[in-house]
């Protein structure tokens, strides 16, 4: 009855057959469906109870039958996305409409999906891995999960394309220092993130996210640009200021808005989202205005006034964090997968990313929201170094563990 071939594993059909069979094969079910004959007698014996069972059974069967509906005829493109639904859902919908190719997405965090990909091995149904961090993509390369992409794809991004050619950048974000402008004067803030430990007034008022991947990428960059010892000294100097550790940026930025801390090492879009809301904004084809984010005058809707501080151009504190996607070795439709990546780099898709989640495009001809930095200015912020070096995450983790941060 079962076809164990690879095709059915990937397509919907094989799975759903199993699901159909699942409850039918269960011998217990027979009794469920047909309670002892006695209970169905004319004297209405025990009807409420069998009624209850029937309702439950009906629920189970209803679900089963839905599951049994054959999902699709055509081979669908399966995307494992570490990026959240807020961005991916709309883009995938856009893609579906254009190509009429069935696409389905499995969401998770980068690490969950990587763990799943590793455990799935060559039985993975996934075609595309779309990650939040270069760290995750590098790890995927290390584990030999990705395929090499054609130059036609690799040439599209203006910057950040990796030498390995196994993934393409899709968007980029920047490390920034978010601060409460009623408690901190931006002129008191240092030109380089390496100067931050010297601002003693910030004792107990700093927030950071040592366990979060973008922070770890940043530490890796510090190690690469400034050297191992400098990175260790910086971590120690920071710890002397008794920073508060958050698991992720969202609670940290809310803590900043709530006045719990006054400065926070974070990513640029968290500040923008706090101030300008989330994905509901429609993309408007307006050319970037000259207004700089840090000079934003608009009063925050609730909470403390939170603003963005960029360190001096080229400082490692402004590190660009690149998100990207690659085609998996297990994919049996690599062309379609590459076509999808091509779509992600199309101006429309790029512009949508900018408008919906406030991230910067990686292709030169896409627009951004008017409250964001113009693309060229933003790209100039980040230091220039070999981004492949961000792969060396293990040494960073060892350093963080050494310093008691993990």
């Amino acid at each position: 009855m079962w076809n164990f071939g690879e095709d059915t594993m990937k397509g919907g059909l094989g799975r759903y057959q199993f699901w159909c069979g699942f409850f039918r094969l269960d011998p217990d079910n027979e009794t469920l469906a047909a309670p002892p004959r006695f209970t169905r007698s004319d004297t209405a014996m025990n009807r409420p109870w069998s009624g209850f069972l029937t309702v439950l059974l009906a629920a189970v069967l209803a679900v089963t039958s839905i599951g049994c509906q054959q999902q699709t005829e055509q081979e669908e493109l399966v995307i494992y996305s570490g990026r959240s639904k807020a961005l991916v859902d709309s883009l995938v919908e856009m893609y579906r409409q254009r190509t009429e190719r069935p696409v389905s997405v499995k969401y998770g965090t980068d690490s969950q999906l990587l763990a799943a990909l590793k455990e799935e091995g060559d039985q993975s149904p996934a075609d595309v891995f779309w990650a939040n961090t270069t760290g995750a993509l590098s790890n995927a390369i290390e584990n030999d999960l990705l395929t090499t992409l054609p130059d036609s794809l690799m040439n599209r991004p203006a910057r950040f394309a990796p030498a390995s050619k196994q993934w393409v950048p899709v968007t980029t974000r920047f490390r920034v220092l978010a601060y409460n402008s009623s408690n901190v004067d931006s002129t008191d803030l240092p030109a380089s993130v390496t100067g931050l430990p010297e601002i003693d007034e910030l004792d107990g008022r700093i927030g950071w996210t040592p366990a979060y991947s973008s922070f770890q990428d940043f530490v890796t960059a510090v190690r690469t640009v400034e050297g191992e010892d400098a990175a260790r000294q910086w971590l120690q100097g920071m710890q002397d200021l008794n920073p508060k550790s958050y698991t992720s940026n969202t609670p940290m930025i809310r803590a900043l808005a709530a006045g719990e801390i006054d400065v926070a090492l974070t990513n640029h879009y968290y500040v923008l989202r706090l101030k300008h809301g989330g994905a509901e904004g429609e993309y408007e084809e307006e050319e970037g205005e000259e207004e700089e984010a840090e000079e934003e005058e608009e009063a925050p809707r609730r909470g403390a006034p939170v603003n963005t501080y960029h360190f001096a151009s080229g400082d490692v504190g402004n590190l660009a964090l690149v998100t990207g996607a690659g085609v998996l070795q297990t994919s049996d439709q690599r062309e379609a997968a590459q076509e999808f990546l091509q779509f992600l780099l199309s101006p429309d898709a790029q512009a949508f990313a900018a408008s919906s989640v406030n991230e910067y495009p990686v292709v030169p001809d896409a627009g951004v929201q008017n409250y964001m930095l113009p693309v060229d200015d933003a790209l100039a912020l980040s230091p220039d170094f070999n981004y492949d070096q961000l792969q060396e995450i293990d040494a960073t983790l060892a350093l963080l563990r050494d310093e008691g941060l993990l």
Partner: protein
Amino acid sequence: MKDNVLSVENLSKRFAPAAPPVVHEVSFDVEDGEIFALLGPSGCGKTTTLRCIAGFERATEGTVRTRDRVLESPDEHVSPEERGIGLVFQDYALFPHLTVLENVAFGLRDRPPEDRTRRAREALKMVGLTDFDDRKPHALSGGQQQRVALARTLAPEPELILLDEPFSNLDALLRQGTRQEVRALLKEKGMSAVLVTHDQEEALSFADRVAVMRGGQIEQIGTPEDVYYRPRTLFVAQFLGRTNLLLSDAAGTEADTAIGRIRLDRPSSGTVLVSLRPEHLTLEPPESDAGPRGTVVGRAFKGHDITYRVECDGAEYLVHTHNRMSYEPGDPVCIRPQEAAVVLESRTHPADVPGGMTEAAPDPEAAAAESA
């Protein structure tokens, strides 16, 4: 081999390989239409025997048969539902979620629905319980619940029913009446039954034959009269009712005792223990005989008869007499047996046994404590 409705052979049960047997080599037959009682104090193994017959316990050794069908043997185990044996529980075990009628119809599911309801109503009528069909068990009195339990067991018309202390949860007044009704019902239907009880009066009045059990073994099987008047062992003599025990010096069918020379039910010699039920003794004025004299020390008038306690040679004896024989405490009397005394098998060393009367032990706890 006789095709008895139930035949138990050398049944033994241990709960663990190293543990002493709870039931030890028990054998008995139940004939068609017979009511058989297993009587004994609690912990004697009677309920375990019953559960082996019903199929809820696996026998360690021995066989259980019905007709020519083996139900239980070391290699065979017919599951309870396939044995066709009815069972009435001490606490009735009525299904609380079902009505009275549904409870009674529970064992009839192989029949068509109309038939099922009709049969269940008949069974309820049989036990004299109509108009309660739609009640739930907890809305009934104890006596009514007992009848429902009985009707439920009788409804599928099993050849054999097992009754596990079915009357013990009823109050004394109700108990006697119910007992007689149930017995009449079983007899009318020609059903065979095995009753388990610790109440000797219940066993004697309800059963056609009684097996007295002790320590996992059957001590004696016989008709109620047999086991009552002709107990084989001290335990049976004591457990079935009050009796007078006498150490006697036997020679042939006669023996010398503290109350004089008496007749024995069978030839014997040497020192033996004999039992004389109080109603087999009578009192006579001292001048009529030269035998040993006693003194009346207590008198209990019970209407139709009188029970005297008589001291004779340092021991006390119980004597039941009709109510026209009147003595007062302090009167000198002679104790005269009216029947031959029963010679008991000397299981227990005679020296341990005090002479004189002993009480039956209706309280199983006390009996157990005594035998321990």
